[in-house]
């Protein structure tokens, strides 16, 4: 009997919640219409100091809100909310792969107000074509100190649609203490790197931790190699993508070198199925001697979750040159990729743009970023040099300042997203040897046609 009673009560409760759920919605819409009329009234009376409560939604690709870039973003959001008490900012954050998937889902209908974007054709072309992002007035940003050329990827037909967050440089992070303890030296050319890899492996340590499960770090590695082979790669890549013909000897050579590298065991066992976190953890827990990743991870040096012994000894170098290659070590794989934009359909466009501009005030993203050991921003950061930079930060600044050329957008991001998807999946096959170099190049070429 008691059981029956319990079931009955439960059922009633559930129906009640269901009903109240519906009711709640109704009242909410009523509220909205009421506030709308109020708004009209206030506008009619031209009383401006009672600010309407506004909720901005931010969709971010930085799920770790306590370290590095995510921390910086959250700090700025908190600042903004405390300076504008009528504004509430809700953040939805997913890691990069999940972010891009969800972004496309959102793109079909209704974007959040402020979103993370990438100023690269693979991401932006279709997005801009669909008119999802709000054009910005470029003249407004003249004195924001953007590094020259950094806005290019975010433009279409002369109009600016987003702002870059970082200047990304790709390189090998290495554990300096581990290198010294074992008598290893930073390789001066690519052959030395491969020899060093063998030595490290014999010592029972992973030579290079590679996030091969995602595909894009491998594609950037390929870009990096292509720069070593041919120096300036922009024309080769854009030609190949325009024609779908990837048989250019430089591309073939770079791909062969990548496959050879992967099969020589430079990366950890099972690299082609392991994700970002796994690769990074191998390195930060002293299981791997090197980690191939971008400058945005320079904040590792300040991450308290990483043991002091490792975190204080992280250094970096760029891809070493290859024999007979046209590119030098100072020709770096670097680009302005990630950034922010405002959704065209946003109902609070003005506030969203205001917030966007707030983020890019030089003393926000650039300053906070620098203080938190994140890599370089896309703006002039020289004013915020404190002398307390981590060694990593100084190294990356030097790398960038001494660069003789910059690769621009990595190869996988230069084509349409079908190309990107195919390339990032097939590159795993060419690395682990299940696909030949020729097959790989013809398959990715096929997607460009």
């Amino acid at each position, binding site marked *: 009997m008691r059981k029956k009673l319990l079931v009955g009560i439960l059922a009633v409760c559930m129906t009640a919640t269901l009903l109240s759920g519906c009711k709640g919605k109704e009242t909410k819409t009523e509220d909205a219409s009421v506030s709308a009329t109020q708004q009209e009234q206030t506008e009619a009376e031209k009383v401006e100091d009672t600010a309407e409560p506004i909720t901005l939604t931010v969709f971010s690709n930085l799920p770790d809100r306590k370290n590095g870039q995510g921390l910086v973003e959250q700090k700025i959001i908190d600042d903004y909310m405390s300076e504008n008490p009528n504004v509430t900012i809700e953040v939805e954050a997913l890691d990069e792969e999940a972010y891009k998937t969800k972004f496309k889902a959102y793109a079909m209908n209704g974007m959040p107000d402020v979103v993370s974007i990438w100023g690269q054709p693979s991401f932006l072309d279709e997005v801009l074509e*669909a008119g999802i992002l709000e054009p910005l007035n470029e003249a407004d940003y003249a004195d924001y100190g953007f590094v020259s050329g950094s806005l290019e990827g975010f433009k279409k037909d002369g109009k600016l649609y987003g702002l870059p967050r970082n200047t990304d440089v790709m390189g090998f992070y290495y554990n300096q203490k581990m290198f010294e303890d074992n008598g290893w030296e930073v390789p001066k050319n690519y052959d030395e790197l491969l020899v060093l890899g063998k030595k490290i492996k014999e010592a029972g340590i992973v030579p290079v931790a590679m996030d091969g*499960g995602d595909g894009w770090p491998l594609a950037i590695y390929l870009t990096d190699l292509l720069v070593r082979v041919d120096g300036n790669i922009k024309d080769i890549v854009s030609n190949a993508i325009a024609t779908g013909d990837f048989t250019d000897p430089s591309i073939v050579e770079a791909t062969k070198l990548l496959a050879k590298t992967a099969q020589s065991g430079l990366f*950890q*066992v*099972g690299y082609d*199925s392991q994700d970002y976190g796994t690769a990074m953890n191998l390195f930060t827990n002293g299981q791997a001697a090197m980690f191939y990743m971008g400058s945005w991870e320079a904040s590792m040096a300040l991450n308290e979750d990483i043991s002091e012994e490792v975190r204080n000894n992280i250094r970096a170098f760029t891809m070493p040159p290859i024999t007979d290659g046209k590119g030098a070590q100072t020709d770096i794989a670097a680009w302005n990729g990630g950034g922010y934009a405002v959704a065209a359909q946003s109902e609070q466009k003005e506030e969203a743009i205001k917030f966007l501009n707030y983020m890019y005030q030089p003393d926000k993203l650039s300053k906070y970023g620098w203080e938190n050991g994140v890599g370089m921003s896309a703006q002039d950061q020289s004013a915020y040099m404190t002398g307390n930079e981590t060694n990593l930060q100084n190294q990356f600044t030097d790398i960038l300042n001494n660069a003789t050329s910059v690769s621009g957008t990595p190869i996988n991001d230069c084509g349409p*997203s079908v190309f990107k998807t195919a390339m990032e*999946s097939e590159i795993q096959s060419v690395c682990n040897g299940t696909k030949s170099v020729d097959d790989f190049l013809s398959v990715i070429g096929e997607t460009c046609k």
Partner: protein
Amino acid sequence: MKKLYSNKLVILSLVLPGILVFIFAILAPICLSVYYGCMDYSGMGKATFNGIDNYKMLLRDAAFGRALLNSLLLAVGFVFIQHPIALIVAAVLDKLQGKAEGFFRCVYFIPNVISVAVIAYLWKFIYNPDFGLINNILKSLGYQEKINWFSPNIAIWSVLIVLIWHGFGWGMLIYYTGIKNIDPVLYEASAIDGANQATTFLKITLPLMKPVIQINVTMAIIAALKQMETVYLLTNGGPGNSTQFAANYLYQQAFKAFRYGYGNAIGIVFIIICLVVTVGLNTIFVEKKEA
């Protein structure tokens, strides 16, 4: 009574909620899929009609073929690895009495109630070549080589092991119930005839379990076809497309490669395959039953 039981309005009111749910959640999306399946549509902006081009493309799509092949491998794995073990364990469990029986049954079923999200991430760690559980076990047995459990040739089997492990309790439980339903008199008779346990199992348990086995096998094959969540989190179809499955592939194409139209075309073909296989299996088994 008859009048009361054929009141059209009452009937309508009783079945309407069910029909509405069906229309809204199953029929409408399928129709929409058919529509978008004939479109060249990125998911944003304009859609242009392209007839059956998507389906032609699908015919030549090696990744989709691989996905179907993987479903087949998975089904084979379920039927020839998971089910025999489950059946034998169920038969063995049947011999136990009292608390031990309940304990084992409970333990076997526990993985089944755990979320796929947890299972997939857990097994990522278990398989990790550098610090994973399996390679640590091998190491403690003296095998020093690091094995890559997700290398292209064996990745699909590694996925299979996870699925077998996860679904083992379910299959076992159903066989167990089937065995419990067998009339004990039959066992007594065979004991009097002097049959040993193995013969009893082969001559009595197995034939009587045939309908249960058929249901279980049908469900396993369909589950293999519909597989998505574990693969999505464990390998996302990689490396290459070596662990690709139809559901995962259509999701990737629509939300990753900006080919919403193509994704829908895959969805339609996928639905048709599922329908054909389900109906096919049912007719095969029903005919057999009647024969």
